[in-house]
């Protein structure tokens, strides 16, 4: 494919002389994603448990996280910028918000999927609600919850690139600088590495899930 600029897709000597910068961008990308997923899980677990336990709150919880989910990421970041500035905090608030719907929904669906017979058996064996949750319901829901974590991670890795516009961005900053300079190499590298990162994260989370849920063959 010919490029408009007449530049080759990649100039390897640029890559060679900018390895440090590429590495920093990759690390920042991983850190931004990890914080978002970690904080997202910490917030989603109590919300998910409450919405699952108290059915009446469920509609409201899913509707509000769903509404936040509809807001385009660039707009969400833009709505926060006047208040929290061009900071990591702005990026993280936006990124965490997006992980919530996926995580909360999968926690609810996962817990709902626990077979009634199993729950009845536990009740019959004298398990109290908290022990039932920890020993039975959460482990059985784990494959679905982990599926949510995977989707949230892959999605967040893509969204981090957009935070380049508010001065963060990890690999997105490489893409943006390539766009501004009309120089394809950094943007091709940035795009390629973010896809690679998403695939690696997805595969490793899948392996991790198999390790911690040896009983499931999902």
């Amino acid at each position, binding site marked *: 494919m010919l490029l*408009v600029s007449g530049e080759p897709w990649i100039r390897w000597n640029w890559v060679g002389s900018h390895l440090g910068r590429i590495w920093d961008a990759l690390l920042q990308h991983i850190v931004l994603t990890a914080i978002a997923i970690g904080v997202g899980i910490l917030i989603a677990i109590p919300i998910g448990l409450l919405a699952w336990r108290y059915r009446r709150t469920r509609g409201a919880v899913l509707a509000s996280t769903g509404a936040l989910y509809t807001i385009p990421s660039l707009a969400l970041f833009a709505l926060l910028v006047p208040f929290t500035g061009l900071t990591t905090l702005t990026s993280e608030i936006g990124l965490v918000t*997006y992980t919530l719907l996926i995580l909360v*929904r999968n926690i609810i*669906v996962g817990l*709902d999927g626990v077979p009634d017979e199993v729950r009845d058996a536990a009740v019959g064996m004298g398990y109290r609600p908290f022990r039932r949750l920890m020993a039975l319901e959460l482990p059985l829901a784990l494959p679905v919850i982990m599926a949510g974590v995977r989707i949230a991670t892959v999605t967040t890795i*893509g969204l981090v*690139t957009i935070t380049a516009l*508010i001065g963060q961005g990890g690999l997105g900053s490489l893409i943006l600088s390539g766009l501004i300079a009309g120089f394809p190499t950094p943007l091709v590298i940035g*795009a390629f590495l973010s896809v690679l990162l998403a*695939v690696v994260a997805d595969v490793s989370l899948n392996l991790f899930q198999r390790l911690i849920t040896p009983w499931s063959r999902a």
Partner: protein
Amino acid sequence: MSFLQEVGQWFLNPVHWQGTGGILNRLQEHVLMSIAATVTATLIGLPIGLALGHWGKGGGLAINVANVGRAIPSFAILVIAVQVVGIGATPAFLALVALAIPPIVTNSFVGMRDIDPELRDAARGLGMRENAVLLKVELPNAMPVVMAGIRTSGVQVVATATLAALVGWGGLGRYIVDGLANRDFVQVFAGAILVAVLSGLAEIGLAALQKVLTPAGLRLRDQPLKSAAIRKGAPQAEPAS
């Protein structure tokens, strides 16, 4: 004057509503581009998904392609499209179509596969030809899931069209991108509100369309279908990028 009052003033200023850079024109650009991209993606993705689902082949491929699609940041697709076709409306259109196709293909495939095989057998047993099986039995039954894919794509297209301001095209994203460049946060905020409202409307509109197009007999089954799809790891709504 507080920040929100300034934003209010921005909206009340008639200058911001008129001309090429005015809200009305930017809104029109955004809506027309989104419709064009979503319709084109449906025309391409729907036949592929339905055909794969009807013959039950290539499903793994369809799902994998969609998963890879999810991993590619829309920002990157947009920027790479610019490198290939130059700046303006064309790269924006191409990138939006490319983004919108995968959810439509996977959902129409999954929707077709989820149909009770007995329905298909019954239709064949009644002497229906393959075309009739597809159009009169499979498609109506798959409609809720198919439409969910189109809805996901449509909302995502509206969202990503915002980013297209970065590649020299118009649309409502211009306010955010230009505002960020000039540190004019009032304009950034106003643009973000416009974009958020439009995405909300797109979601509501497509949800209504989904409801209308779902055959009456299937409406009651909507909810269980949805959770079954989540359990199988089928594609769900993605956040808009």
